[in-house]
């Protein structure tokens, strides 16, 4: 198993945002996460990526205990993430944004990292924008940059947080194709998404969260047919 989460719990005072969560992801597997707003999806990502520390529970990545490992350590271990609201380094160029991940996440020299960064930019259609400031990018480009930057750190698990939200149909289809390619290259994917058809084009397994709890898990189509899931989702799929 690449990622093993057992009994994960996080609470802020009386509010429980992750409640006894168990989740495993195999090497090069793609898993989707859905759930209403406030279900604890992004919190789960913050717990995995190390931005938050859990109140209880255990996480192992590739057999290694993640407890006490800071975000940069988790990145170097092979966990890459994107943010729901893109967080580009606005005063660095697009290429420099990737270099940060390649140089510090993979511990390569800038010279060694240039080739990989160029290839990732080409793959994500950002090559023409390589030398412009990231602050001048459009929303779609910022989302691509989020992904490109995470890929530059050579992750084995990529956490995608609502990467398809706010995009047009065409843009969304392109993005799904790109994520499919990344997946084929052997990177495991854990993907939070409200745009269900985009999610279903890529994932093998679906997890449904509500109020910090896992309420369903299994093959995407079957899970969506369950009445409890359907009830929660009726408002979102519309």
């Amino acid at each position, binding site marked *: 198993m690449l990622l093993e989460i057992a009994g994960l719990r996080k609470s802020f005072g009386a509010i429980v945002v992750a409640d006894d969560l168990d989740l495993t992801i195999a090497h090069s597997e793609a898993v989707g996460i859905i759930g209403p707003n406030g279900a604890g999806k992004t919190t789960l990502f913050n717990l995995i990526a190390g931005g938050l520390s859990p109140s209880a529970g255990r996480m192992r990545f590739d057999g290694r205990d993640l407890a006490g490992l800071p975000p940069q350590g988790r990145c170097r271990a092979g966990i890459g993430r994107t943010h729901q609201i893109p967080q580009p380094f606005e*005063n660095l160029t697009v290429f*420099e944004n990737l270099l*940060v991940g390649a140089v*510090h996440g993979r511990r390569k020299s*800038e010279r060694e990292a240039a080739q990989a*960064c160029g290839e990732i930019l080409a793959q994500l259609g950002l090559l023409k924008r390589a030398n412009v400031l990231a602050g001048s990018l459009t929303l779609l480009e910022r989302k691509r940059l989020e992904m490109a930057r995470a890929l530059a750190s050579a992750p084995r698990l990529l956490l995608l947080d609502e990467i398809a939200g706010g995009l047009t149909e065409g843009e969304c289809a392109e993005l799904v194709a790109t994520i499919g390619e990344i997946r084929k290259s052997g990177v495991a994917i854990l993907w939070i998404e409200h745009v269900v058809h985009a999610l279903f084009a890529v994932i093998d397994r679906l997890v449904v969260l509500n109020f910090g709890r896992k309420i369903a898990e299994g093959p995407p189509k079957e899970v969506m047919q369950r009445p409890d899931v359907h009830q929660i989702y009726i408002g979102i799929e519309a």
Partner: protein
Amino acid sequence: MDPGTAKPKQIFRIATAHGVSRPAAAIACIVLLGLVLLPTFAGRNLIQDLIFLFYMLALAQCWNLLAGYAGLISVGQQAFVGLGGYVLFALTLVAGLNPLLAIPVAGIVSAALALPTALIVFRLRGAYFAIGTWVVAEVYRLGFAQVKALGGGTGTSLTPSVTASVPGIEWIKTLLDVRTPAARDIASYWLALALVVGTLAFVYFLLRSRQGLALGAIRDREAAAASLGVDITSIKLAVYVATATMTGMIGALIYLQKARISPDAAFSVLDWTAYVIFITVIGGIGTIEGPIIGAVVFYLMQRYLADFGAWYLILLGTLGILVMLLAPRGLWGLLSRRYDLTLFPTRRRLETEPDE
């Protein structure tokens, strides 16, 4: 993409210090040479003014690195200015060390004390960090006020034998045919010039290194930098200690030149931090060029408006507020955006071969 067409694999290269750098480097060399040779023909007033300009610029570069890049908004850098000054006084007056040697030792002592200071203030964030650094500086001030051997609360002066023992003063006297006080100023001038060039070079080469790349990322978005593998705490600590070292050396030089020290002056938040923040902010925080512009503006205001007393400070404050409101990226931000200027290129460009 069709794999069948066997498109030649693209080769990517990184390029730094692009374009503008060569003429800019030539101009920088000429300016530097001019500044080195200046004492041969300039008057003593100008030399003294430039010493002031140089050390304010060096302090501003340090604060810019600290606050503009590493996000450490310290209002307690006077702790290291005063510390450096006092170490110089202690080493020369009490231990009899040569002042020129005392300057680097002041830097080392500042670094050694910056580490435990960091252990305390690094537990604080944002505004609390700012206040914490100020409190620490006050502790330093009160501490040195207790040292009777260095004049306690009223301070002390360097003896003429100490100030005249800077190597090269005799040489300057004969070479330029000046009296001892003028020769002292010229020696201080060259030391200040060396320190400011050293500080600029340090900041520039740091920003071009991999740590500099990380500092740019931390400046823009700290949390995202961490999730890309940047070890934020280590880099911040290194920047804090490095700037404390340089600030301590600058402090030693300032008080060697002034030849008189007291706790209130040496640990003055107004002189060594508020003015420095003003310089950095009006020039353009988070750039190397900003503090240079800011220091020149500050020097000119000080030179021509200081006679207006309280009005001078009111004017300074008003200018600061106006720049923050109308040009949040400072005067250099306005210029560089309009004319696409860089004096110290740190950008890394991606270049493609074969070029399309």
